[in-house]
């Protein structure tokens, strides 16, 4: 499988970008900020750590997924390294899959580093762990699935568009994906049959990022229903697979002459 060496190489490239060092610093910053925040507010400090930690993880993960994701293919074409790569026995779909999993691996490491920061903060403030703290790990895994979807979106756009437009499209899709229920609601409340159909189509066609909104619940120590959690994971994986397939299809049709 040539996919694994490409993924490893993509991961190494990301690490060379000094991305992970920044994340370690950020993890430390979370610890420091949670200590400061606990002294200027009233209420459950763990809740603030979880909200802040998981939101940071999600926002930074999204930014990394978009800004590195859009360059995954473009960089190879721009530097013309794609020619030497494709001249070797590397299929185009293997190239795309390798890039995709390489960035996913980078984000997995990113999430683990940040998680460590969150758990250290909790331990520092409470001097113990509880079984309910495992919920944070589950939430982080769901965020990883969400980020895999964002990578797939960025990768898909990067196969046929410039980095600027790819970033713009990916970001817009990410934002729209958080308004899915509004799109559906708008259609349901409309009297027009055409709008009902259109909003229904958009609702199912656009990625629904609201499925991954778990941070607030986790901060309150509430477990997401197992079935709902698994369905959200499945949704993310299936949607990502669809987008990666589309990216492969577009990339296979591209002419590099």
């Amino acid at each position, binding site marked *: 499988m040539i996919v694994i060496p490409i993924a490893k190489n993509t991961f190494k490239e990301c690490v060379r970008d000094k991305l992970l060092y920044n994340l370690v610093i950020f993890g430390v910053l979370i610890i420091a900020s949670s200590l400061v*925040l606990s002294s*200027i*507010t*009233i*209420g*459950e400090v763990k*809740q*603030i750590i979880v*909200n*802040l930690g998981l*939101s940071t993880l*999600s*926002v930074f993960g999204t930014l990394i997924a978009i800004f590195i994701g859009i360059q995954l293919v473009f960089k190879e074409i721009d530097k013309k390294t794609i020619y030497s790569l494709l001249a070797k026995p590397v299929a185009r779909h293997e190239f795309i899959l390798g890039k995709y999993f390489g960035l996913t691996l980078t984000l997995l490491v990113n999430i683990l580093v940040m998680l460590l920061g969150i758990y250290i903060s909790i331990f520092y403030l409470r001097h113990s762990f509880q079984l309910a703290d495992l919920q944070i790990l589950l939430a982080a895994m769901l965020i990883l699935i969400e980020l895999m979807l964002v990578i797939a979106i960025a990768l898909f756009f990067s196969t046929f568009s410039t980095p600027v437009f790819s970033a713009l499209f990916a970001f817009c899709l*990410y*934002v729209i994906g*958080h*308004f899915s229920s*509004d799109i559906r609601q708008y259609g349901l409340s409309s009297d027009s049959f055409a709008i009902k159909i259109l909003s229904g189509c958009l609702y199912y066609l656009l990625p629904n*990022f*609201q499925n*991954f*909104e778990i*941070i*607030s619940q986790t*901060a*309150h120590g*509430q477990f997401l229903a197992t079935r709902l959690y698994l369905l959200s994971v499945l949704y993310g994986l299936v949607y990502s697979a669809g987008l990666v397939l589309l990216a492969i299809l577009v990339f296979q049709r591209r002419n590099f002459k």
Partner: protein
Amino acid sequence: MNHLFKICLLAVCLGIYWIQSAIDQKIGLFCSTEEVLYLPSANVIKKLSLGHNGLLADIYWMRAVQYYGGKRLKNERHFDLLEQLIEIATTLDPKLLHAYRFGSVFLAENEPIGANQPEEAIALLRKGIEHNPEEWQLHRDVGFIYYWFLNDYKKAAEAFLEGSKNPRAAIWMKTFAAELLAKGGSRQTARFLWQEVYQTSENQQMKDNAREHLMRLTAEEQIETLQVLIEKVQPRIGRKISSLDELVGLGFFKKRPVDPKGFAYILNSTTGKVGLSPASTIRRY
């Protein structure tokens, strides 16, 4: 040339420090959150949060605490933004229990300690109950505000009774509701309520607040006792008592009676009423 750049950089750093210090001196060391909401609609903020409503709720709650704290430190009496800040925080995260519980205290407390808005405090708690029906403490807080700030003992009893229906509610809720209907706002019931808040609160600020109120109740009791004593002693000695030191001289006390914070009580020789010393830090309503 390189040294010149370094010197310039150092000068810039010192300049920034000097300018910022001058600004801080002008506006004071501690300034409360400015009187701007930026985005007044909680629902708009929720939509724009892209799923990070929990974090934004924490930020808005923090802003509310800082706003309230800033006003308290400056001894300002108007808490114009407080209700809206808490409203936004609780709309962003309807499960933010401490925002309901502490927010209602901030709103209900009399000026200058709070915003003197007990009705708004009750509305906030009712919103909390709607989103968190399993939290019996919110009913207790509603009852408490009706009792303490609005002196509406019937509604207070109703709130305690409503909360007592929750299987996890404290067992005193039901009996207290009945007692409240029978005795109304006696000092005994007030002491019981504050004692309850003091013992069950996990938060230090809440405990401190309850202790302050308990000290006030103790002071009231002591003032009443002193007043009764003076009224009994005066006919016996055949003259008006002009100072509490006289009671010490008559052998009633070894030293001048003091309030729970250690400040001596005073007797107004004109009115004949016992009261707190102007220097006393016992909370006044």
